[in-house]
């Protein structure tokens, strides 16, 4: 049956508006990619909108031969992979225990949990001093250990676990499974939606994080890609006072006050692309999982 005219008009207008909205969101990415693939000196003159005017991969070459950037990329990948796996695992395990109301430590755990949730953190300096006393400062583990347990993820997992039919778990116990076996072989496989959701959250958080690099590390070998990008982009906006040595080097053409636009855009692409590529694969789980996790347990 043909749709009424009003419906068809609505569809057209709706489609047009959503297309415009979508285009406004996609265009900045296209712009950044176009600049990154354009020759540096040509980019500095502007006028590149969607397609590169002088196509070149020079900016990417500069990035990938730069050992500092490669090292930063490896650190970012390592912390994302390891950090994500551990936070998902630890949060899930903690949440599972937290579903056992008959557990003798349940009430104290609940109290600590809520206190930590609402009053946790303590401020930058106490955290810094804690990390120092734990020997985490200026080590790779400062990216991993403090973030192994996230209380919000625990809430999400717990809510999801509590909605699973108890009979499935009990059937596993009847078959002789231990708590650990039941968790890994029954509960976790059934929790793919919420696990995927939290994997995405955790991966994005780990990948995008740079403040922990800023505050808790000092060694150049521990820099992450986001931190390097932040430095490079900040250099373009930094205060314009420079030293006499730098001024004289600039006058001689030995020092650029700012990295070429195309290199900055290339770094932006390299930094955001991994997460953008991962997201579509987890999207179907994400929507399901976030809805489930948001319900009261």
């Amino acid at each position: 049956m043909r749709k009424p005219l009003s419906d068809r008009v609505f569809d057209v207008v709706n489609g047009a508006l959503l297309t415009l909205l979508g285009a406004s969101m996609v265009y900045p990415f296209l712009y950044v990619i176009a600049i990154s693939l354009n020759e540096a000196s040509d980019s500095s003159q502007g006028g590149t909108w969607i397609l590169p005017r002088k196509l070149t991969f020079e900016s990417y070459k500069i990035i990938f031969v730069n050992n500092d950037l490669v090292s930063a990329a490896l650190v970012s990948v390592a912390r994302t992979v390891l950090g994500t796996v551990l936070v998902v695992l630890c949060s899930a395990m903690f949440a599972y225990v937290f579903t056992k109301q008959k557990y003798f430590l349940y009430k104290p755990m609940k109290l600590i949990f809520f206190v930590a949730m609402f009053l946790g953190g303590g401020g930058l300096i106490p955290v810094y001093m804690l990390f120092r006393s734990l020997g985490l400062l200026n080590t790779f583990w400062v990216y991993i250990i403090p973030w192994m347990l996230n209380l919000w993820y625990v809430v999400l997992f717990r809510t999801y676990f509590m909605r699973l039919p108890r009979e499935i778990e009990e059937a596993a116990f009847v078959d002789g499974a231990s708590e650990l076996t039941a968790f890994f072989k029954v509960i976790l496989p059934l929790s793919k939606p919420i696990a995927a959701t939290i994997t995405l959250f955790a991966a994005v958080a780990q990948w995008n994080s740079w403040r922990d690099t800023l505050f808790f590390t000092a060694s150049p070998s521990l820099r992450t890609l986001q931190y390097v990008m932040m430095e490079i982009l900040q250099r373009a906006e930094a205060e314009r006072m420079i030293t006499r040595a730098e001024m004289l080097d600039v006058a001689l053409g030995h020092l650029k006050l700012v990295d070429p636009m195309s290199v900055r855009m290339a770094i932006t692409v390299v930094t955001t692309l991994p997460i953008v590529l991962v997201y579509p694969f987890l999207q179907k789980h994400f929507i399901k999982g976030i809805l489930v996790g948001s319900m009261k347990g």
Partner: protein
Amino acid sequence: MRRLTAVTALLFVVAVLALTATGYGQSVPLSEDAKNPVTFTIFTTRVTTAPKPDAPVLKEATRRTGVTFNIMTGDKEKLSIMLASKDYPDVIVMPRDDILYRYLRSGDLVDLKPLLQKHAPTVYKMFGSPVNGNLLDIFSTDDGKLLYLTENYDMLREGERHPEDAMDPDRVQAELPWHNVFYVLFPEAQDVAKKKISNLSEYHDAVKAWKAKHPGQDYYAVTMEKGMGQEMLGSALSMYGYKVNTYGGIYATKDQKKYIYGFKAPEVLPFFKFVNKLYREGLMDPEGPVQTWDQMIQKMSTGKVFSFIGGYYSAYTANDNLLRAEATKNLIYIPQKLVEGGAKQNWQYNAAYTGSAALVVTKKCKDPARFVRFLEWLYSDEGMVLDSWGIEGEDYIINAQGKRDITPEIDQKKKADSMYNTKRGIKFFYRMVNMPTYTSDGQPASARYAPFYSTKAGQDPRDVKVTASPFNWHLDWQGSFWKDYAEVDLFIEAETPAAIAIAKSQAILKDTIAQMVVAKSEAEVEEIYSKAVAKMEGYGISAWEAEIQKQILAKRAKKS
């Protein structure tokens, strides 16, 4: 009895010799130090990209002195964390602002004066020399301690003169002006102005003539960016004969007695009425007051912008981009010295400026004497040349006249890779602490003054043409430097009424200037300006002015 006296005397001589050999009571010879490797951690906010420990120059310095530096770079926030947690590296290079003064009050810094006196007599002498302004006195605390060293100032010995002596009234200035000025595109300026632009009226005629020649939509007679307000303000004040310094905000004076917040100078309103007029006549880039610096540079790099009012930062970046494109490689932004309002003098730069960073040694440093001995080595010919020139045969050569020099190939390497110096470790220490200007043989300690750069091959070809033209600006700022140590290194404690006032006034300044530029009439410019000044007064900007003035006059009185 005689025998006893002789034995005693002999024993005494032996003891003295033994003690001398062990270095007790004297500084340790370099050859001894080099056998005892030590590593110092150094944290700096001064550079965002530090050389790696295996950078050739640093490696060579380690081989010669036994000192290795574990270099860490970071943000100013990290300094606050370190201070609060007392978790310090051995050496820190930090901004000379509120954070430094918190460190000075912490009691966690080493007094460098006795160490310099004992272990680095050359450094001590140069820092204390009247030729260099007696920096030991200037930067000592009230109780006579020297808790930090400064940078960005080339040190001289008695009888020496800087190759670019700022106080030389005949100075031919090679680098772009240090202060903010009006820049125009050359040789376009030659077509529309015929001679150097010397006042606002000529400037207006020139930009108007240029726009008439280039009526196209993407040709802009004048451009700016949204954060450029303070630069335009500085350019104006200088044009009207003010001496301009910046600490938090611009403080300006004409008579060195009364210092005012730059925005409150009576000439500011007429100046921004002029800029507004440029906008209303279509001569100012309509996007100027709202665009980013990147967008402004992009436009300037096309060669389709005639002028901007601002600083060397923008000029150098745009000039570099212009040179790289075939269509624009002959264009260059050059400064013009405008004088207005009957000003007898155009002031450029307070040559007493001793940088904006401080080098401190913390009490966590296990061997501060060793670090100070390293500074003494840095002040030796060997140290200076290694730090500022690099390694002979790789970073510089000895030319036919027996002088240190750069070859075209080395120059090209540096131009092609802006990280060359960082990768090699060149000038790392120059960015941290004052260094001498000359080695003991009278040659410049810095590669900047290599003979190559006096040849045509070492110069920007566009600048060669400018120098040969009526628009040669390199002589225009002769006599425009002054030297007043009292006007620099001021300190306003954070969270005081003065500090709050300047922070709020600076925020108002940024928006106000953009609003004045795009105002619909002169009357509106006046209204915007009056409201802004009233707001600033309401926030207590006069307290900031008073504090600045008090400090300057007190320092002047102390010196006399």
